[in-house]
C-alpha cells in the first residue's frame, strides 16, 4: 500500500506528463503482478465492489475525530471529497501497517457480508495504522471515484513503456469486460491473443474541436462531412452470435437498449459498428433530454420504448467478418459500412448521411442549419484517415455550432467545493419579467479563477441574506450565459430548463436593466425547444 500511496502522492505533486509517466513506470517496476493488475484496474475506473456504506464511514470518522456528525458533513462540503475529508479529520496513526495494495483490497472484499460492527472494527483498525496518503487511498478504494490526476492514457503509456509494447496494443488489451477477479496480469497484458474476449470493444477515436475556418483544412475533395448527432457515442459488437453495446464511457449498456437485441441474429458474426445511440421517432431525432431521462431509469419499460425509442446512427465500420478494419482508409470503411447496412436492413440501423459539397462555404451553411436537424454541428473527417485510438489531432474534427446565449442577472451565490472551496462560484441567474427578476438557471463554470476571486469579494460585501450556504446578493452583476439547448420544464418557475448552461463572460459593461427578459427565453424555446 505504501508504494501505491507514494505513487499517488507523486502523481499529485506534479503537473508534468513526463514525471507522471516516470512515477508510474517506477511503480510498475517495484510492484508484484497482483498490485500491478489492481493499479491498472483502479486507474481504468474498475474498483472493487463497495462493501462498506459511506454513511457508516462518516459516522465512524466523526466519532474517531471527536466532532459532531454535522460538523464532519460541513467539512466534507468544503473539502468536496469524502475520502480526503476522512483522511484529514482522523487523529494521527498509532501504529504502522505493512500490507500491500492487493492485501487491502482482499480485506475490503472480505467485508461484504459481515455485520456492521465487524466492518467498523476492521476499518478503524486500518485507519489507525496508516498515515494520511495511505488513508486517503484506502478510503478511495472503498468509496470509488479515484481521480488521481493521471488519465487512463498516461497509465497506458507508462505500461506500454514498462512492457515494451505499443501503446495501441495496451489500450486494446485494457478495453472490455475484465476485472482483476476474472483475469491475471499475465493473461491480460502478456498473453498472445488478447482478442479472446468476444465482448472487447475497440478504443474510440475522438475528434478535436475545429477552432479555425474549415478552409484551413485544404482541398475539400479530401474530406467527408457528416452531422454531429446529439446522442451517446457507442459501439455495437456482434461476435459468436452475441450482441454487446458499449458506450463511449466504456460501459457495457446492452441491457439498456432492447431495440438493438435483434441485431445479434441479423448482423454477421464479427461485425463492429461505431455510431451514435440516438433517440429517434417518426423520421427525426428527439432531444438529448429524452435519452437522458431514459438512461436515468432503472428498468426499460414499454412506455419508455414507445416515448423514447433509439436507433443507431452508423458512422463507421471497425470490424467485418472478424477482420480489424481500423487501418484501412475511411473511404473504404464507409463503402463497407454502407454495404453492411444495406444488406442487413433494420429500422434501428441508419446511415449517417454524408453531406455533399464542393466548396467549404457550403459546409458553413449546413452548420448554420444544425439546430433544425437537432444536431450539434458537423463532423469533418479525412477520407484517407485510419481509425485511431483516443483523441488525436489532424484527421477528424468536430465543428460545433455556437451556443445560444442570454444576458442574465446574478441573484444568489454559493461557495464551491474541492478545487474551489472558499470561493463563491455557483450562481443563480434571473431574467426580467416586468419589474421582477425570475430565476431560470444555475451555472458554475466558465470564469477564470481571477474573476471568481473578484466576484467572491463582491459577494461578501453585497450579501442581502444568508440561507445556509447560499447568499442572496444585490442584483448588480450581469453575465452572458451560454447553453446548448432549451426545453420546457414544469419544475422550474421560469418554465424553461437549459442544457449545459455556463458563464460565457462577465458583462461588466452592462447594467441590470439591459439583461434579457423571460419573453426572450420563451421565444428561444419556441424556436429551438
Amino acid at each position, binding site marked *: 500500500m505504501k508504494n501505491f500511496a507514494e505513487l499517488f502522492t507523486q502523481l*499529485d*505533486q*506534479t*503537473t508534468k506528463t513526463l514525471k507522471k509517466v516516470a512515477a508510474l513506470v517506477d511503480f510498475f517496476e517495484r510492484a508484484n503482478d497482483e498490485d500491478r493488475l489492481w493499479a491498472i484496474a483502479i486507474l481504468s475506473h474498475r474498483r472493487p465492489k463497495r462493501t462498506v456504506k459511506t454513511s457508516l464511514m462518516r459516522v465512524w470518522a466523526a466519532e474517531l*475525530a471527536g*466532532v*459532531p456528525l*454535522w*460538523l*464532519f458533513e*460541513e*467539512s466534507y462540503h*468544503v*473539502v*468536496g*471529497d469524502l475520502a*480526503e*475529508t476522512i483522511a*484529514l*479529520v482522523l487523529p494521527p496513526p498509532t501504529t504502522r501497517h505493512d500490507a500491500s495494495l492487493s492485501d487491502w483490497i482482499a480485506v475490503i472484499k472480505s467485508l461484504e457480508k459481515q455485520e456492521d460492527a465487524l466492518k467498523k472494527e476492521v476499518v478503524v483498525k486500518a485507519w489507525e495504522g496508516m498515515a494520511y496518503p495511505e488513508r486517503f487511498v484506502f478510503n478511495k478504494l472503498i468509496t470509488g471515484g479515484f481521480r488521481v*490526476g493521471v488519465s487512463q492514457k498516461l497509465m497506458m503509456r507508462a505500461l506500454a513503456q514498462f512492457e515494451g509494447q505499443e501503446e495501441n496494443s495496451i489500450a486494446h488489451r485494457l478495453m472490455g469486460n475484465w476485472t482483476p477477479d476474472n483475469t491475471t496480469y499475465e493473461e491480460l497484458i502478456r498473453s498472445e491473443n488478447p482478442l479472446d474476449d468476444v465482448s472487447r470493444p475497440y478504443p474510440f477515436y475522438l475528434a478535436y474541436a475545429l477552432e479555425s475556418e474549415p478552409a484551413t483544412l485544404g482541398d475539400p475533395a479530401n474530406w467527408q462531412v457528416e452531422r454531429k448527432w446529439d446522442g451517446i457515442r457507442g459501439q455495437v459488437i456482434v461476435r459468436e452470435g452475441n450482441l454487446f453495446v458499449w458506450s463511449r464511457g466504456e460501459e457495457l449498456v446492452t441491457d439498456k437498449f432492447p431495440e438493438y437485441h435483434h441485431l445479434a441474429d441479423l448482423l454477421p458474426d464479427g461485425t463492429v459498428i461505431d455510431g451514435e445511440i440516438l433517440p429517434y421517432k417518426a423520421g427525426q431525432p428527439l432531444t438529448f433530454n429524452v435519452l437522458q431521462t431514459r438512461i436515468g431509469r432503472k428498468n426499460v419499460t414499454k412506455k419508455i420504448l414507445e416515448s423514447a425509442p433509439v436507433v443507431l446512427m452508423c458512422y463507421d465500420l471497425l470490424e467485418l467478418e472478424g477482420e480489424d478494419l481500423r487501418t484501412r482508409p475511411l473511404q473504404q470503411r464507409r463503402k463497407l459500412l454502407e454495404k453492411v447496412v444495406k444488406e442487413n436492413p433494420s429500422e434501428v440501423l441508419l446511415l449517417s448521411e454524408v453531406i455533399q459539397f464542393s466548396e467549404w462555404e457550403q459546409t458553413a451553411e449546413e452548420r448554420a442549419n444544425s439546430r433544425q436537424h437537432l444536431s450539434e454541428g458537423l463532423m469533418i473527417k479525412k477520407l484517407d484517415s485510419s481509425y485511431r485510438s483516443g483523441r488525436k489531432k489532424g484527421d477528424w474534427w468536430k465543428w460545433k455550432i455556437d451556443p445560444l446565449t442570454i444576458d442574465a442577472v446574478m441573484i444568489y451565490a454559493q461557495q464551491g*467545493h*474541492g*478545487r*474551489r*472551496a*472558499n470561493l463563491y462560484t455557483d450562481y443563480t441567474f434571473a431574467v426580467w419579467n416586468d419589474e421582477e427578476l425570475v430565476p431560470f438557471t444555475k451555472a458554475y463554470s466558465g470564469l477564470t*479563477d*481571477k474573476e471568481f*476571486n473578484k466576484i467572491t*469579494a463582491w459577494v*461578501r*460585501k453585497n450579501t442581502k441574506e*444568508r440561507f445556509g450556504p447560499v447568499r442572496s446578493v444585490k442584483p448588480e452583476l450581469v453575465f452572458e450565459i451560454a447553453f446548448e439547448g432549451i426545453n420546457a420544464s414544469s419544475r422550474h418557475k421560469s418554465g424553461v430548463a437549459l442544457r449545459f448552461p455556463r458563464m460565457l463572460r462577465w458583462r461588466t459593461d452592462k447594467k441590470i436593466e439591459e439583461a434579457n427578459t423571460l419573453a426572450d427565453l420563451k421565444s428561444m424555446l419556441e424556436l429551438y425547444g
Partner: protein
Amino acid sequence: MKHKSSTDLLQFTPKGIWCPPADVYIDPWRPVKKAMITHGHADHSRYGHRSYLASTTAGPAIKYRLGDINLQTINFGEKINVNGVQFSFHPAGHILGSAQIRVEHKGEVWVASGDYKLEDDGLAEAFEPVKCHTFITESTFGLPVYDWQPQEAVFADINDWWRKNAAEGKVSFITGYSLGKAQRILQGLDSSIGKIYTHGAVENINEVMRLQGIPLPDTIRVTGDISSKDYPTNLVLAPPSALNSAWMKKFKPISIAIASGWMTLRGARRRKAVERGFVLSDHVDWKDLNKAIEATEASRVIVTHGYTSIYTKYLLELGLDAEAAQTEFTGESIDEDDTPSDEKDTTL
C-alpha cells in the same frame, strides 16, 4: 451582523469594531478618528484614519506601508486609558508585532484578537492567553480538517524540495505573503543549499525588519542586473501575486511551491496547479482555535472572518454564548496577497 445590545463594550458597526465610551475603533475598514491596529496586514490596517495606535514592533511595517500617518506605538502589556476605558496590547503570535487588544471598562473585559496562532514560530512574539468575558476571534481555519504539523517538519519538507530541485538544476520558487509569512519561511530555510533571492515586496519588508534588529538570513533582491543564469539551483521567495506573472516567467527551469494553510486541501493545490503545496499558516488550526478559546475562559465569543456560521454553531453546542459578526476582514488568501498594489510591480 446584529447588535446583541447597544450596551456592548465593543460593537460591530459599518466602520469597524467600535468602543463607544472611548470612541475608539479596532482595525476599522472605513476612515475614523482613533484607530487601534492589531497588525499590519491590509485587511486590518487601512489608510485614512486620523490617528493610529499599534504595538511597538508592529509599528515599522505599518508605517512603511501606510506612509505618513499619525502613528503612536505601545509596548506589549502597557496600559493606556481613554475616557475611562483601559486598553492594552498582548502578543497574538500571528506575525511580528501582531496583537490582541484587551479592553476593560467597569470590570468588564473584552479581547479583540485580530489574527492569531499558538505555535511559537521564533519570529512573532509568542501568543499570550488573555482571560476575558467576551472574546472576538477569527475562524479562518475553523474546521477539523485543518491540523498543522510543527513548523520544523514543514521546513524540513521545504528544504528537501529545494535540495532536490538544486540537484536537478532548477530554480525553487516559493510564495508566501510578503509581511510575516515570507520572513517565517526565510527563517526556516537552510542557507547551505544555495542563495536566497527575494521579490521586491518581500525584500522591502525584510529591510524594515532588519532595521528593527530582527536577524534574518542573507537575501538578494531580484534585479535586472542579475543574469538569469544565476538563478538555477537557488531559491526565489515571492508574494502570491507573483505566481504566474510575467516576472516569474524569467526563472527557468522552475519548480513552484506555495506555503499556505489552504494547501491542506487537494482541491486548492490542484486549482493553483503548482508542484508543491506546503501547509504553513500564521493562523490557528482547529485544535489550537479551540484551545485558545478555552484558555480565555470567555463565556461569550464573537466569530469574525472564516467559517463563521459553522464555527459559531459549534461553540453554541459547547454551551458558549456565540455569535457571528460581519466584518471586512479576509483572512489568508492564496490568490491575492496583502501587498499594496504599488509594491507589486517589480521589474527585472
